[in-house]
């Protein structure tokens, strides 16, 4: 069965520092992969997605993610974090043969001024 692992429950970074959030997936074929962000008290916003082609994908708010098949990873990165990036980040992958998404447990990002 498909699964998504986000190893880091909580990460704290200083404003202006770089960020990498980890996501590992288990999937039988090349999956579609998604990153969502949930700001406090808000719903989920799609940050970026990977379907095929270029393994480095660009998203909104200056985020990017790299798909690495050999490592079954889809890590999210940002070169310089802003205080407004403090939120919870979820990685997701569709179930095989269906439209339902399976979400990781999420990584909470705190930003120190």
């Amino acid at each position, binding site marked *: 069965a498909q699964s998504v692992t986000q190893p880091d429950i909580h990460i704290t970074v200083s404003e202006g520092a770089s960020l990498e959030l980890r996501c590992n997936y288990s999937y039988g074929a090349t999956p579609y992969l998604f990153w969502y962000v949930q700001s406090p008290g808000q*719903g989920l916003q799609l940050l970026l997605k990977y379907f095929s082609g270029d393994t480095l994908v660009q998203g909104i708010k200056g985020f990017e993610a790299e798909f690495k098949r050999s490592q079954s990873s889809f890590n999210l990165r940002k070169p310089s974090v802003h205080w407004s990036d403090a939120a919870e980040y979820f990685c997701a992958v569709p179930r095989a043969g269906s439209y339902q998404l399976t*979400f*990781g447990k*999420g990584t909470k990002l705190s930003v120190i001024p």
Partner: protein
Amino acid sequence: SAVISQKPSRDICQRGTSLTIQCQVDSQVTMMFWYRQQPGQSLTLIATANQGSEATYESGFVIDKFPISRPNLTFSTLTVSNMSPEDSSIYLCSVETGINNEQFFGPGTRLTVL
């Protein structure tokens, strides 16, 4: 993309009562989903709601507890019945755009059951 609204945005309810949550989309979509997010947790799919057919429930969720309606291609409701404090969660609806499993989410309904 799709713009999704939910009503109410939050509510505080007494145990034993029921609450109906509405989800409205600004365009016609085939597939809508309802998720639950318990405090400090990730999202768990409750059911898939397709227009013109019965909702499909995930393991651990039953129609008597979470009845769903899907009267047309832009609207759905989820009812949380006979509520208990364990039902305190954020309930989110989402829609699948028909493009590569991409889903867009509503802002959520924050439910507290006393």
